[in-house]
Each structure stands twice: as C-alpha cells, then as structure tokens.
C-alpha cells in the first residue's frame, strides 16, 4: 500500500500506521479513507494529498 503526502503541510499518511487518533485503523489504504477525513496535521481534505514516489 502506498504512502500519500499532504501537499499543504507535508504530513505523510502511512497506511500501515493508519490514523488511530482519528479512528482510522492500521492497514487502511488511502483510497479507503472516509471522504470527510482530513489531514491530522493541518486539516486540509483528501484532495490535497498526492501519492508518493
């Protein structure tokens, strides 16, 4: 599963770790995050993320 980076602040979403603090369990692919999920660092939406690599 690929990592995604927030283009606004640089936060990296790592599917292996998920975003436990906001109810996203480890192993959740970026594509499967809920539509209203936001960057846990700066708060922008999914549309600001880009696939890394």
């Amino acid at each position, binding site marked *: 599963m690929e990592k995604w*980076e927030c*283009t*606004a*602040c*640089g936060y990296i979403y790592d599917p292996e770790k998920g975003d436990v603090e906001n109810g996203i369990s480890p192993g959740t692919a970026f594509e499967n995050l809920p539509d*209203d999920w*936001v*960057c846990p*660092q*700066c*708060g*922008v*939406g999914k*549309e*600001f993320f*880009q*696939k*890394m*690599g």
Partner: protein
Amino acid sequence: MRVIIIGNGLAGTISSKTLRELDQKLEIDVFAEEKHHYYPRPNLIEFVAGNIPQERIFAFPGNWHQRQKISIHLENPVRRILASFQEVEVGEGKREKYDFLLIANGSSAFVPPIKGAEKAGVFTLRTLDDAFHILEYLENHRQVAVIGGGLLGLEIARAIRAKGADVEVIEFFDRLLPRQLDVQGASLLKAQIEKMKIKIRLKSATEEILGQKEVKGLRFKDGTQVKRDMVVVAAGVRPNTSLAKEASLETDRGLIVNEYLQASHPKIFAAGDCIQHSGRVYGIIPASFDQARIAASNIIGEQRKYRGTVPSNTLKIVGLYVTSVGLVNPEGEEFEEIQIENKEDGIYKKIVLHNGNLVGAIWIGTKKGVTEISRAVTEKQNVTKWKESLLKDNFDFSLL
C-alpha cells in the same frame, strides 16, 4: 501556568495543540480576530471552486477546543500587549495576565498602490469571509481579472474559472510563478493553463482600476485598457507587525525572533506568517507548522532551535504537477544549471548545482523522483557523479 496565544490560524492552532500534548494542566487561551474556527487556507480555494461544501472548510470538529480544554475567544482580538506587566488588553480595557505569550497573528493580503483599488468589486482572498464575499459578487459579475500570477493568483483563477466565469491573470513579471519557476518552466505552465481557457497577460503593471464606484475595467502602464467587472488581487502577503511594534518589540519586515523563536522580550514567543527569522519571512504552511511546534515546546521549557524551513512547493494546476525546491533562479557563475524538456508530454526538469552540490530543482509534469530530489536539495547532496543521468526518466532515484 497560563499561555495566551494571539491568532487562530495554523500557527496559533498548532501551537495550542502542541502545548496541550506536552502539558495537560496548562491553561491555554487563544484570542482571535477571526470569527470562524480554524480552517486551512488551501481549503478556501476549493470552496470558491465549489469542490467542497462549507462544513468541510474547517479542520476540526466543533467541539475540538472543548475536548482539548483550550479556551478560544473568537472575534476578540488582542488590542495591546503590555509586555512589562505580562498582560494583554482584550475588549474594552479588559486585561488578561499571562506567563508566556505566543504571537501568531499571521499576515494580511498585500494590495499594491493601484489607483481605484478601493472600488466595489475589488477583493483579496485571505479569510473565509473574503471567500463568501467573492462568491456573492461573482454571481452577477463574470469578467474577472486576477492581479498576480503567483501560486495564489493561479489557484484563485482556477477556482473562479471552475465557476464558469471569464478569467484573466495579470502578471507584472515576464513569467508565471516568478518565485518558483524559471522562464522555460513558466512558459510550459502558461501553455497548459491557457488550455483551460484562463487568459494570461504578462509584463503588465496595473495602473488604475476603472469605473465610477464599481469596477468596470483595468488600465495598464502602457495605456492598454481591458473591460473587467471584478478584480481579485493576489500580490502576496505582509506580516502583521503593528501589535508587536506598539509593544516596542523588535520588528523589521516581520516580528524578529531568535533561534528559539523568542521575540525581543523573554516571555514572548512567536510563530507563523508574522515572524522574521534569520532575515527571512516565510508565509508557507510547512514553515508555520515547524515554528508552531518549536515555539510551543520552548514555552514548556525545552530548548529547541528552529533551523529554518526549505521552501518546497508541489502544486497541481490544470492537472500538471509543479514542484520547485530551493534555489531555482541562481545568479552567479559558481552555479551550474542542467535542464531537460519534453514539450509533447508537458515535462520540464531542471537541477541547480553549487560546486557539485544540489541546491535547487524544478520538476514539471511528473512526480517521479520528487520526494527524493526534494530531500537531496534539503541535504545539499553532492550529485556530481549523476549529473548527466539525474534528469533522465529511468534514473534510479533511490540512489539519492
């Protein structure tokens, strides 16, 4: 201990969040001029474009401050800092005492001295209220000029174009994104943007906004006139320094801080768009983020040094990835520039070397290697041995 934070933008919000993470007992008060809760500014563009609904502009749920035990005072700006008393004045003569003050009151949109800039129909986009005003005016005014061909100007043009209006971007320089791109990269970007039916006018200084009370057009320095009924000015931002100045804190272009992000008074720290560190004013999210975390840690008693943030911008405009890292328009013979362009695929890449060390890069139309190249620029890696192959499609970026 009580910390007062001025401002609820990114720096104010992230520093309050960090303070709470570090200390559960700390009393945290945020005073803000803003009437809305924290929203990341990039969301404003998507909101204007109609890509996200109003409720999704905000970063955190409505009860976030309550859960974090952070007292937020909206529409309640600090009016005066009384540094020697460790107090701020809020509301009418009401004073609040602090142990530490964190100034994060940001920056304001800069409007160049253009004749007629006070007319109805002239906007800037900095706050959520600005976005509301733009959308309202846009309903009955469909000929828009965006003054400024920088990152924000192009993003605004894209958003307004998405609303079906006619948009023309007016740029003073001879190229778009003058800070991030060189001439060659910018001309490739321009061609892509024009495909989106956004007009671009370069080398044009706006001298006057025409019309009686409302915008009817623009007149440029060379005498040319164009009909337009709405103007959005995107000519950059300037740090808000008047509050700090009145408190006799050291200021220049921004509020001056040392490497611990401390202002010229030991109980006052600062972070975000309002500060000037090592002669630099950043105005970018990653820098504000780093600063907010460090300033908050130092208030708690750590001794963390802020070492600056390398500006890195990847934006996606008209479906085109544009990355610009570090120094991209070097001046002087000691620099070496190597570039490659493929017009058909809309790809342009350039690296800038200083004594063989990588100090800057532009990547347009591709993301391949962007992460690695950005890191290599940050580390000023010596890439002499790869300089011939680095720009090729098949280069193994894991070598960096």
